């Protein structure tokens, strides 16, 4: 599992990336945290610690992009605005890696797959 402080950031990030407007059920986020932790366990210590480090950076970076407050405490609109600015910046890679790890796992949740109408095994 991911450390609890990191989970807060990861949940906030998932909300700002994968919510289509209807909100993400908490149980699905719980599953995401568990399965992402398991996935990163297979990736080895370098990747796992890198992931945690990038999430920590995300938590404190909004200030440097003109948005005041820690990432996990921002409202959804401010989180999205910050991520847009971050993705257009020269340090977009800080977002890319956590987004990749969470996206890989989130879109394998059986309910998400069903919502997408994806016809093959996710």
């Amino acid at each position, binding site marked *: 599992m991911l450390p609890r402080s990191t989970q807060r950031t990861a949940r906030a990030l998932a909300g700002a990336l994968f919510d*289509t407007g209807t909100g993400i059920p908490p149980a699905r986020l719980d599953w995401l945290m568990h399965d992402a932790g398991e996935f990163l366990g297979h990736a080895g210590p370098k990747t796992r610690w890198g992931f945690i480090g990038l999430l920590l950076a995300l938590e404190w970076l909004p200030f440097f992009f003109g948005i005041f407050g820690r990432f996990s405490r921002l409202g959804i609109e401010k989180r999205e605005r910050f991520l847009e600015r971050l993705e257009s910046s020269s340090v977009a890679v800080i977002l890319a890696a956590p987004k990749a790890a969470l996206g890989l796992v989130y879109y394998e949740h059986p309910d998400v797959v069903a919502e*997408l109408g994806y016809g093959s095994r996710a």
Partner: protein
Amino acid sequence: MTLLAVQTGRSIEGDLEVRAQVAVVGSGTGGAVMAAILAEAGLDVVILEEGPYIPDHVYQAYRPTETLRYLGREAGTTAVLGLGDSPLITVMAGRGVGGSSLLTGGVCFRVPEYIHDRWVHERGLGDLSAEHMDAAFSSAELASSVETVPEHMRSKAIRRFVDGATKLGIPVKPLRRNTSHCEGLARCNFGCPKGAKQSVDKTYLPRAIVAGARLYSDVLVEKVTTKGGRATGVEGRLLGEKTAKGQPKKGRVRVIADHVVIAAGSLHTPLLLMRSGLRTAGVGRHLTLHPGFRMVGRFEDPVMGWQGALQSAYIDAFEKDGLTFNALFVPPSVLAAGMPGVGREFADRIQHMSHLGIFGCLVHDDDGGRVHRIPGREPLLTYRLSPRNKVALIKGAKILVEIFLAAGAREVYPPFFGMPPIRSMAEANTHLVDSLSARRMECVTFHPLGTCRIGKDRDSGVVNSYGCAFDLAGLTVADGSIFPTSIGVNSQLPIMAMATRIGWRLRETLRA
């Protein structure tokens, strides 16, 4: 279902000491071919694989990230650090019995003629001409059931794309793949659910085992042992669960062999040679990657990209620019992981997965990468994208945008972080300019090559054209690391062909 007789390192108590005529390190595309050829010639062969053995009926049921967890090196998160104006590049490499062949889309190309000509005329490697390698390619194609993907196996998304290319006068050709009875489920690179992909765990490895080769999984080879300037075997350790006291498994591995074949791939073969004290200057240098990207086009109506072969068509009309374009599809999870965008817009794109068509581009690149030895099991990888390769990638992006728009796509999502969707060529010309920072590119590779490359002598390479190390007798390298340059096309079949001709030669040498 194919079940191989594999002894797992995890099941071995104590140490493992084995004697053989040939020790093959790695059971992927190169190692499997070598093992089959040498075992069928009556030689006593031992194959050592670092990864686990997962039978096909097990991995066929995996989710994509489960495939990455259990069969991908570092769970598919291996990355190459970009130096200067270069992107961070994710490298997909296998780690398990069957190696990276388990994770390919099955695409099989021969090495293009112009690459052979370059090897012969610029590198002085006469026996790597297309004519010299023809028999080896034919043998590998036959063994791997290489067949042309029929047009009816193309998804609606790819048929649309082909229509767009045709309007622009760009020819699209059918791909060839190593499949048998493919049902078009579009997830070959995460383990074909029907077992149709003919990865080496279904072809060469069963042949090797039937001929008497012994295959050990979960064995990490750490060095080649030598005596008097000659390889005498390999040493390493058994991998497995920690003991009840939390200590790592302690079992050591020692294989005494007359000849050692290294086929651990372009990232780990040089690392193993460095750890073994080989001092040839080229070891770990000249890494080429075929940096590539996915372009995604969104259509008004559903185009069901997953209903058809994962990879069915390609474009080689821009070969002179070093560009190859391949049709492909990726599951939603993989698409979401790599597609730029944030917020509701991003979620909306993935939500409309059924409307998305995907085409890939890769560039025949210069040798700007390097494998560095650092503490730990994995190497540090660095890569500097050459300016001309960057310009080629941007040109490739523009070509794909143009084709998608001609095909009727409403908008196209370029692989650059922070770039808005493109809806016209005017927008493409505004955004996709040569001054664009390559660091913003979402880049991936499946074909690392060249880190122990073939040369005429030890000043220009690490091995000769038959994979024999210049600086250590009794050592052969037979994987993607020996390619003299990048090849501009998928490397699976070329590695098999190269290993085939090396195996044929070694077979005669060892028999003598």
